[in-house]
């Protein structure tokens, strides 16, 4: 095999995140890992001023009669995408 063919074969053999069959688990490290968020601060709706506006999107959940909203504009970026929380007696993960 000449050099070009050798490089071509090598590139094909390198693992990528996605492969032909699509479901082998081959994740790629793209950024560092982030510490888990476990004790995030909350406000009652009545105390909200500028933190979130009416047209902004939230992830809303009701568990055991307790309602909580997670504004998407607080969840973007790898340091925020998972909020470990407790609501209505259940341990939950709100994710984006």
């Amino acid at each position: 095999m000449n050099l070009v063919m050798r490089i071509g074969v090598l590139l094909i053999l390198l693992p990528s995140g996605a492969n032909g069959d699509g479901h082998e688990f081959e994740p790629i490290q793209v950024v560092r890992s982030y510490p888990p968020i476990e004790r995030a601060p909350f406000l009652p709706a009545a105390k909200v001023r500028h933190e979130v506006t009416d047209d902004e999107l939230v992830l809303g959940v009701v568990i055991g009669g307790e309602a909580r909203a997670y504004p998407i504009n607080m969840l973007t970026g790898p340091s925020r995408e998972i909020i470990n929380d407790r609501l209505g007696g259940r341990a939950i993960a709100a994710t984006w």
Partner: protein
Amino acid sequence: MVYARAIEHEEKPQELTFQVSGKLWHRSLVMRDMQTRSLWSHILGECMQGPLKGVILETLAAEMVTWGSWRERHPKTTVLALPRTDDFYDSTVYRDKRGWVFGVVIDGDSLAFPFDVLAKRRAVEAEIAGHPVIATFDPRTTRATLFSRRSKKKGSKPHRFTFDANKNTLVDRATSSRWNPASGEAIDGPLKGERLSVLPGIVSFREPWRVFHPKSRYADVGQDK
């Protein structure tokens, strides 16, 4: 989406805490649990590698909706109060509705309701793994919700609904009772007080849904599936 952190593995209950691993799989977030350091696909809710491989997290019913709509329906709600990371995500994000789906998996059967179909029809009935369901949508607040159409009355057939756009209510064909499409509660008529069960579904970009659920069906404009 929202997942339960309590799992059972080999008959042992466990509560997990998740971190962002910094890895992507098919450009989708990979989570790591701190207890076993196993790796999880965020979009599938499934453990892909490590001691908990194969465990699937319970998905809890949650809404992706505007803050105004949420606090109006849940006045006692609390809200996360971390410093803002973005300004981008408001109801205009769904402007190109073809790019988004409301996806559901029940017993291995996947069905996606494209947002443009939901916006046009406002309520779409379907069957997923034999379960009769209905997805409702409010284009103003971008709320998509999935309900079971099973009747609370034993032995009764599943409800069949039409959507009354003028009154923004569902109407069931058997009794003509009126139902709130956000809460699933019958607000008028013979079935007043009955409440449809909410089922979990997720809001997703269309392409990641297709990648992770290649066998998924898609609800379309013309017909119920």
